[in-house]
């Protein structure tokens, strides 16, 4: 056994474990030779900017994109009607048993359901032109009732976000077996706790990005 342990120790010494090593990529990076997606500028690359809804929930009354389309350097403006005509809805959630599918569109069908939701898309020769054009798009909104609290959203009189569902409760998940009430009654003491579990979602603070061209590298 001692021999085996000694051999393992020898093996560990030979490996990287516990060793302090410098990185091979550092020399390139400290010389300013790092390359990131924004450094890649293939020929005829075009840029997109989005118009986003400033309200938690709003009906889109009208969109006037004429000034944006007239701006030099603008290649295309996509409004909801264009996207709705050319694309199909998709599901973004994994199927939850008994939950109806929510089928969002890339641009909203008449109603924006959250602040920051994309309303229109501009494609232009540079990001600067695209952003300028996006600001020229005039959207008339009719703000609608909203809730920002999960428990309030579950109440009966809460404004319903997806009318086809008729409720804001996507799914309930009760689990149990046997005589609950009897088991609780038989207990010497009982305690009740309300547990709030925060929503976990991805953050774009340090985004991973990719740029793909049609050519082999």
């Amino acid at each position, binding site marked *: 056994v001692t021999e085996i342990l000694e051999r393992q120790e020898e093996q560990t010494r030979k490996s990287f474990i516990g060793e302090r090593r410098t990185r091979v990529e550092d*020399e390139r990076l*400290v010389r*300013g030779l790092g390359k990131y997606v924004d450094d890649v500028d293939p020929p005829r690359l075009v840029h997109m900017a989005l118009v986003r809804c400033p309200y938690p929930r709003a009906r889109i009354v009208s969109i006037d994109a004429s000034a944006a389309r007239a701006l030099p350097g603008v290649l295309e403006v996509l409004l909801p009607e264009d996207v709705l005509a050319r694309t199909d809805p998709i599901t973004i959630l994994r199927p939850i048993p008994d939950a109806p599918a929510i089928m969002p569109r890339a641009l909203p069908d008449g109603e924006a359901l959250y602040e920051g939701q994309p309303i229109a898309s501009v494609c232009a020769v540079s990001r600067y032109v695209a952003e300028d054009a996006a600001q020229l798009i005039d959207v008339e909104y009719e703000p609608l009732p909203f809730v920002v609290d999960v428990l309030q959203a579950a109440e009966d009189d809460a404004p319903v976000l997806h009318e086809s569902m008729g409720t804001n409760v996507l799914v309930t998940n009760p689990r149990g077996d046997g005589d609950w009430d009897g088991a609780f009654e038989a207990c010497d003491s009982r305690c009740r706790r309300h547990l709030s579990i925060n929503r976990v979602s991805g953050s774009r603070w340090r985004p991973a990005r990719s740029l793909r061209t049609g050519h082999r590298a």
Partner: protein
Amino acid sequence: VQQAFKEHHGLQCGYCTPAMLMTSLALGRRGIPLDREQLKEELAGVLCRCTGYQKIYDAVESYLGEVAGGGGTA
């Protein structure tokens, strides 16, 4: 300063590194001694999301120490 960052693992993805290096260089040229709290203030203008900063502070302190000791070229 490049060597100090490499040896002290003062970078991971490298995105903020050029700004960190140039700030360090300026601090070296200014030549005013800094304790760690002051160094944090001086580097507050550059955001790093990889390292948690400790390794960066180690690297800059090492570099500034060399400069102060006459070993640097700043």
